[in-house]
């Protein structure tokens, strides 16, 4: 639901709200009026958790990506510590070729490196970054306003606009597609 894919014969509007209460209420009303969750996107300047806005949460993959990255890091650590000393065995200080204590230190570091790097890549992947548009956006979002982006058939538009104005929308605009 990162980008709204506009259906045929639908129009897109953005309702801007000053406070989160009216935004949440309006979202509920839009749903009542038959707008599907998938036909809405909320843009905000502050992270509001999904339950504050009454929106379903459907993204669970990031922790998984992070954990698998950690796994890969762990395996690289093991390879470096357990396999490479045997590829060219060199004896140092009476220690065994593969010693467990240094292995613990290094697999730990590489696990963490894997975790960190994969989390970052996961964010890029999951949010489809970087994508510079054109996307529906409005500068008021980074001024703390909440933008509810929705698509409807033109026939329903008038009704919804009135409804949103009642529930405290500051303005309802035809959003521009920005090259971000």
């Amino acid at each position, binding site marked *: 639901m990162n980008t709204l894919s506009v259906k045929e014969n639908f129009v897109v509007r953005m309702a801007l709200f000053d406070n989160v209460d009216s935004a949440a209420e309006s979202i509920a009303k839009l749903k009542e009026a038959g707008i599907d969750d998938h036909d809405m996107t909320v843009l905000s300047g502050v992270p509001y958790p999904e339950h504050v806005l009454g929106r379903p949460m459907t993204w669970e993959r990031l922790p998984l990506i992070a954990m698998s990255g950690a796994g890969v890091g762990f395996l690289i650590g093991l390879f470096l510590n357990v396999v490479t000393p045997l590829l060219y065995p*060199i*004896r*140092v*200080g*009476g*220690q065994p070729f593969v010693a467990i204590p240094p292995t613990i230190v290094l697999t730990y570091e590489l696990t963490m490196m894997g975790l960190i790097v994969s989390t970052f890549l996961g964010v890029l992947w999951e949010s489809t970054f970087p994508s510079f548009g054109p996307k529906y956006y409005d500068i008021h979002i980074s001024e703390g306003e909440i933008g509810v982006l929705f698509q409807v058939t033109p026939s329903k538009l008038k009704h919804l606009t009135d409804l949103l104005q009642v529930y405290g929308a500051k303005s309802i605009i035809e959003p521009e597609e920005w090259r971000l």
Partner: protein
Amino acid sequence: MSKYEHHWTMIVDLDKCTGCQACVIACQAENNIPVVGEDEIRKGRGMQWLRIERYWEGEYPNIRARFIPLMCQQCENAPCEPVCPVFATYHSEVDGINVQVYNRCIGTRYCANNCPYIARMFNWFDPQFPEPLNEQLNPDVTVRQRGIMEKCTFCIQRIRRARETAEAEGRSIRDGEVQPACGQACPTNAIIFGDLNDPNSQVSRLAANRRGFRLLEELGTEPAVIYLKGGESNVI
């Protein structure tokens, strides 16, 4: 029998050492060790793989000078080895000694810090061999660049050459066939070198001597240099 093919060992009889420094010069000449000059010596950067440390015992007038030739002790559990990040120093399973690979060294100087005997020398600058010293450089030993650690090798070039000769002649190395430069130069025969794996070698017999001790034995580094305690004879 140890786990090494040879276990090269040095015996230094402190009773015989007169502190004449012939070994120091011989080592310097054999191993292409540069002469660094007064200024550097004053800064504590003298380059000597083998040096004679001197200390005094007793109060005047009953005073005695003691000498102890100090070189890399070729520890079995060498503290310098595991700390090197690039395996520039390691334990040779062939000779049972601690080897420094000059061109592998990147100069972290970690090994030198961790050496309790302060036996490792660092090339602070590129070495200078002014005329005529350049004429006597040993072709069997690398001339070290600046930024590299070096130390006593038990004259490994001699050990390996003897081994090659023995191999070509189809026999094993004879006791006394290999002698490091210091031992060769010692006028009193205070430095004896040989293979501890050979039970009949001179070092094997001397190693069992009651006077034997190893330097900083309590650290558990198990040096391959065994000193024979000096008695009363080196009173000056």
